């Protein structure tokens, strides 16, 4: 377990020293959130649903940006082989990557939510919104880490990862957007069933990704 945190720390260090893609992810999310204003009318009427949807589109695409690069960069630099030479098993590598990916996505979310609130006056700063955001990020990063490894070694990595990830993450999209909409509209008490769906999804697919990562990494 200690090794996992070592890997996470390494990823964080690399990121904050080189400022690789976290910055790009944040900027991308912010730009998307601003663009929402021109894509939808969020000033009146039923604005909670398109607002929630737009917010999550920003998260998903920004997340995709980070996930896609995550293992591709490693493979390009040859650091992936270095990792595999270490006496750690694939599962540990997965956990390290997964946790750092979750962190990056959550950082993007943490920056985006206040901005979103400021621009649209929708209650995106309610704690439950952040809870749903994190739960969504966990599931997305779980599958995303696995598929970024699959796509990283292929010629079509940019198109392959979204193609694999989006269809499979549909329950995540449905759950997070519906829950967020409900929280925007009311007190969100009826969002709990969606939370349960998301939590179940996370457990199942993070576990599966952990188990299957071995299959992907062997060379």
């Amino acid at each position, binding site marked *: 377990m200690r090794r996992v945190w070592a890997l996470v720390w390494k990823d964080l260090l690399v990121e904050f020293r080189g400022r690789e893609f976290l910055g790009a992810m944040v900027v991308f999310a912010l730009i998307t959130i601003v663009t929402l204003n021109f894509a939808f009318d969020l000033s009146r009427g039923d604005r909670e649903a398109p607002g929630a949807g737009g917010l999550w589109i920003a998260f998903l695409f920004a997340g995709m940006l980070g996930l896609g690069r995550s293992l591709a960069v490693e493979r390009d630099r040859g650091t992936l082989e270095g990792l595999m030479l270490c006496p750690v098993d694939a599962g540990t590598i997965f956990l390290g990557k997964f946790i750092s990916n979750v962190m990056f996505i959550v950082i993007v979310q943490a920056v985006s939510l206040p901005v979103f609130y400021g621009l649209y006056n929708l209650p995106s700063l309610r704690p439950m919104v952040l809870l749903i955001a994190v739960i969504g990020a966990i599931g997305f990063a779980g599958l995303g880490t696995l598929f970024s490894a699959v796509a990283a*070694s292929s*010629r079509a990595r940019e198109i*392959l990862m979204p193609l694999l990830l989006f269809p*499979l993450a549909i329950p995540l999209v449905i759950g997070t957007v519906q829950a967020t909409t409900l929280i925007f509209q009311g007190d969100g008490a009826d969002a709990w*069933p969606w939370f349960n769906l998301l939590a179940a999804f996370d457990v*199942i697919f993070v576990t599966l990704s952990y188990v299957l990562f071995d299959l992907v990494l062997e060379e």
Partner: protein
Amino acid sequence: MMQRKPANRSDMLVTGLGVLAVVVLTLGIFMAFVYAPTDRDQGDAQRIFYVHVPMAWLAYLAMGVVFIGSVGYMWKRSARMDRLARSSAELGFLFTTLVLITGSIWGRPIWNAWWQWEARLTTTLILWFIFIGYFMVRAYAGDAERGARYAAVLGIIGAIDVPIIHQSVKWWRTLHPEPIVLDTAGPNLPDSMLVTLLVCLAGFTLLYAFLMVLKMQIEWARDVLAERELTALLAPEGNQAERRTVATVSHKVSGAAED
């Protein structure tokens, strides 16, 4: 066609399956057009039900077999399991496409639209993309062995996700309900319709089995040929053992085995 077993047994199996499939399907189509009663509400368009439902059944059956093959490959690294998975994936993709097309054609006169985001159609659309992903992963993986591994990963995750996707789309739909669902008299299906449906289901399942056996043989042959080419590439002069293998595989006696 290259086969290790005596040509008779598996040829008979294939032919038998094919003939049986044709017979049952012919009966099924006849029943669908003539025997089955006309639906009160939807008229004759409802008869599309008798191909649409079997196609859907096959699409998900095929995905299930892909799952089995993928798990089998993950467990044993068995080439046969991989062949099972990729053969069924090809068929699954064909049937999934047909579900979407027949569903759309059926829906048009009933909904006045080519598409509805109803739970089953939506899940099938996503399944369609999963199949595409399955083939892209294989195609872009670089080499066959890696392709098989990655595809197995997708096969496992995809298959497990499909029921979850279906459930979440269903729940989502309760919030965004839409008019009529593609169905016929719901749970109270008249017996004649039920029988017709069952016959069609049986016929199409036999067709699937027939195509699977064919496909498996083709894939086996391709695997062997690929391996053989690899061997020839790696050891052009060949040693005695290799040439013997090669000779067996091509049903020839290699007179020049002494080298």
